[in-house]
């Protein structure tokens, strides 16, 4: 998704934007607990005991496979040529550029609310996000892992939040000066590195 951000103009519309639900691969019954991606061992303990690493990669690969099935993204590296991705980023949001849930920041932290999810009605992108939300994760990280622009991730997260599948914690409000205890914790955390 990097590069000039110029998507193919005019001419072809992306072929099958949405596939019939029946053709979709049934997702796993529950999101596998995800290990952080290459997190430091110390960090892992904080973020929670982890399943074998690669959960995030699996979710991203799953998403890329779906895109391939749509005749869009070929999933290879580099992700796409100068012409940009074949599926426009906002196709997956149904053209929406504003999330239903306002106030999501790039470092808002989100987490799935429950283990059991009715995966049936979920679009692949929603499902991919939900899988990565098995542990607290930021909007920016989701965007990087799924190779989707942050605005798109925010829209999709807004759907999941509205649906009660995901909870978000906003970052420190800009108006509030940082608490001394937070600053001290950050200081100690950096010293420990």
């Amino acid at each position, binding site marked *: 998704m990097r590069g000039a*951000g110029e998507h193919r103009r005019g001419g072809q519309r992306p072929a099958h934007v949405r596939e019939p639900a029946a053709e979709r691969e049934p997702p796993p019954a529950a999101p596998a607990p*995800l290990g*952080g991606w290459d*997190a430091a061992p110390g960090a892992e303990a904080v973020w929670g005991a982890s399943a074998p690493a690669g959960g995030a990669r699996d979710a991203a690969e799953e998403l890329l496979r779906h895109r391939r099935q749509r005749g869009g993204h070929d999933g290879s590296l580099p992700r796409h040529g100068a012409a940009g991705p074949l599926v426009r980023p906002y196709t997956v949001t149904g053209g929406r550029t504003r999330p239903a849930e306002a106030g999501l920041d790039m*470092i808002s932290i989100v987490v799935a609310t429950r283990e059991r999810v009715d995966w049936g009605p979920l679009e692949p992108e929603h499902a991919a996000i939900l899988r990565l939300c098995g542990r607290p994760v930021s909007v920016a990280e989701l965007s990087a892992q799924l190779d989707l622009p942050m605005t798109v991730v925010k829209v999709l997260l807004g759907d999941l939040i509205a649906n009660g599948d995901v*909870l978000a914690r906003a970052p420190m409000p800009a108006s509030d000066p940082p608490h001394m205890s*937070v600053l001290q914790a950050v*200081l100690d955390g*950096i010293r420990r590195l």
Partner: protein
Amino acid sequence: MASADSDNGTAPGADPGGEPGGHIPLAVKILVAGGFGVGKTTLVGSVSEIEPLSTEEVMTEASMGVDDLGGVEEKTTTTVALDFGRITVNQQVVLYLFGTPGQGRFWFMWDELAEGALGAVVLADTRRLDTCFPAVDFFERRRIPFVVAVNLFDGAYDYGTQEVREAVDVGADVPIVLSDARDRESSKAVLLALVEHVMRRRSPATTGRPLP
């Protein structure tokens, strides 16, 4: 660090008792700014617990152009790439380090980036010190605390911090740190100088360690 509590992060729904999401950590961020190629991502990578990730934001901007297509306002979109890293401070706090786009034309994004930031590191290269001036201006105008870190490139002129302070024209309270963005300890010292600076500004009584 591995306590029973830490399991909650991977067991959504299995959260015992407390409200779901009660263990969502608070995110804070520090910006790393400076001219193009000055070593922002290198600094982020040297302290981040993950390989720096890259994300992008598609920004829409009203065009300044003169083309008027039947009253339809021309909009242009620009894709802005951001590199960032993460430091898990503890179970309650996670710190993100964002390398800010170096090019001037991405400035319209900085307001969103800067919102709520703890502070900023302005990376400077003494061979082309002027490339850090816009970042210094930006943070001064918005009263965002920052430190100037002079990245010591091979072959860079050997300036003292006082000379850099005069050249960049920042107040005596702004820490100026000589650094090597590739070196974790050095980058840690830069971040520590920043956080201590932020704490001093918050509470003059709480002076941290002397600055390096």
